[in-house]
């Protein structure tokens, strides 16, 4: 069963120019115990998707349609009080900026004990759990470190503490929003390794958002590729990265300089810009930047099976089959 199952989700923002349709008919799922990566560039709707899952949306946002099923319950139908009870216990988050996620005037130990307020444990037991979690994310000398303040830790350590705190309640779902973007590459590798180890141990589902294809390739089991508010491709990381079925996925992979082994002076790009989400063009959302655009693209493509468990929203797939 899926921990998180999103079906046909559409979210818009009211703006002075009209409705900005940030998410349109988005469907995806996080199976139990799997790490699912969402990859996409700015404006693809990643942040809107997360805010819709945890129901912390901007005041001008409106859910047009769809369901966000978490362990079978539709989160969009829950009361605010029920959501509050879920956040931090069943659904935890790790944010992009490790420098701003901790309260600067409380010790790390105090913060790690405070978040266990729902548990019926003694102070000593809570402290012990906090210590164990710190050790688990690889903070040396955790007992002494609990008495220190956030500013006494480096960025990489703070992000590890954030992960420790997020996983302390043994959530069913961890949402990690670009958790390594603010970190140096050598630390990024370390965080990913820890995340993977911890996930193995706790067995929670992870939704990992990143624009870094290499990180997704290394960490995730499955990947969801988003473009301009739509899911354009889903599948196992191996299938999608080795045989991308959607032209956008292919172009994105080609643009990553890490992919290009031979020195080149001219790097590949995707010409054009993402469409205006207030005045959406009809048909395929990627058509005006796609090098394989053809007549069929005037109609919006549905998600089609491109391979074993791999799906993409492109007319080429269905055309190939019928041909």
């Amino acid at each position, binding site marked *: 069963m899926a921990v998180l199952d999103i079906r046909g989700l559409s979210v818009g923002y009211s703006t002075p120019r009209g409705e900005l349709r940030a998410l349109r008919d988005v469907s995806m799922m996080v199976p139990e115990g799997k790490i699912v990566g969402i990859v996409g560039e700015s404006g693809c709707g990643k942040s809107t998707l997360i805010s819709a899952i945890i129901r912390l949306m901007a005041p001008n946002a409106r859910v047009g349609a769809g369901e966000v099923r978490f362990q079978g319950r539709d989160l969009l139908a829950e009361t605010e009080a029920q959501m509050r009870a879920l956040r931090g216990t069943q659904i935890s988050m790790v944010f992009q900026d490790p420098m701003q996620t901790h309260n600067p005037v409380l010790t790390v130990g105090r913060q790690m004990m405070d978040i266990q307020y729902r548990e019926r444990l003694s102070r000593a037991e809570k402290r012990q759990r906090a210590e164990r979690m710190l050790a688990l994310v690889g903070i040396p000398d955790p007992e002494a470190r609990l008495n220190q303040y956030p500013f006494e830790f*480096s960025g990489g*350590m703070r992000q590890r503490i954030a992960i420790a705190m997020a996983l302390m309640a043994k959530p069913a779902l961890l949402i990690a929003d670009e958790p390594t973007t603010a970190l140096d590459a050598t630390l990024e590798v370390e965080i990913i390794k820890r995340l993977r180890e911890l996930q193995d141990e706790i067995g929670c589902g992870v939704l990992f958002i990143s624009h870094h*294809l290499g990180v997704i390739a290394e960490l995730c089991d499955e990947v969801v590729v988003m473009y301009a508010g739509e899911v354009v491709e889903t599948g196992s990381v191996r299938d999608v990265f080795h045989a991308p079925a959607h032209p956008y996925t292919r172009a994105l992979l080609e643009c990553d300089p*890490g992919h*290009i082994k031979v*020195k080149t002076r001219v790097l590949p*790009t995707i010409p054009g810009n993402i469409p205006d989400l207030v005045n959406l063009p009809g048909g395929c959302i990627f058509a005006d930047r796609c090098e394989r655009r053809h007549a069929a693209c005037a109609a919006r493509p549905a998600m089609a099976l491109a391979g074993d468990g791999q799906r993409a929203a492109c007319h080429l797939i269905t055309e190939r089959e019928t041909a």
Partner: protein
Amino acid sequence: MSALLEIRDVVVRFRVRGGVFSSAGSVDAVSGVSLDVEEGKTYGIVGESGSGKTTLARAVAGLHHASEGSILYRGQELRGLVEGAFRPLRREIVMMFQDPIGSLSPRLSVKSLITEPFRIQGMRERDLDAEARRLLAMVGLPPEFAARYPYQISGGQARRVGVARALALSPRLLIADEPTAGLDVSIQGEMLNLLARLQDELGLAIMIITHNLNVVRHITDRVGIMYLGKLVEEGETEAVFAAPQHPYTLALLAANPEPDPDAQLMRVELQGEPPSILRRPKGCEFHTRCPFAQPRCATEVPRWQAAKGGAHRCHFPAGWDTAAAAS
């Protein structure tokens, strides 16, 4: 023989105010760096946060004072120049900043921003409308952009405006600090291609500062790897990529995960956290995190050793058999 820019043993020292745990003193953000940037070539400085790469760039651009060493631009010493004496050189040495929108004065229109160099340098006789049009075309922005303000343009467009104003006066040396930071992968290439094209057209030398080795690989002629204010390896880009010698270079290369789930990972895992520049480790500054460190590394500062196409500072370099590595 002499390069456009010759940096020799440059030290940039900052005074540190004493805190609860430390006494007042000074810290060397850049600690004895030497490198040459040739006319028309691209030099990449690679390093992570706190490596001093931005400080070095700003010292060359005259925004920080170098405390020791020398910075020779076409044979002229830049170190210690007062602002008045530096000003004419600012036509030739220009800088692009990390934050594309934050480095544009928020109340100025794009036209004012890109023609500002003319006004600052007192070239008021120029037809600024024509210059604005020329510069916008050069960086691939439509003329309508002249009327926009920084808050009305995207990060990628702001980058182009940054390039336009940097190149307004046809400089000879462009210092680009993280020119692709915050850009999407699909746009990153456009920015780098633009720089490469302008370099070919204008014969510009570029000093590019970045943490992204993948970027450096394709667009630079030479690279220098910085760690804790010092260069640890330096050489021709292709040679460094083919046979990295310093363990830190190896770690950096390995830390750029490839977008391929089956990639053969040759991972060099670093231990612990980068040390604070306030407490620079003795001996080789990298030994606290180096997976190959030996007792000698903790006591003896490694000297520069030549390698194929470059040089490095490591007692126990990787010692690649380049032929084996290529296969």
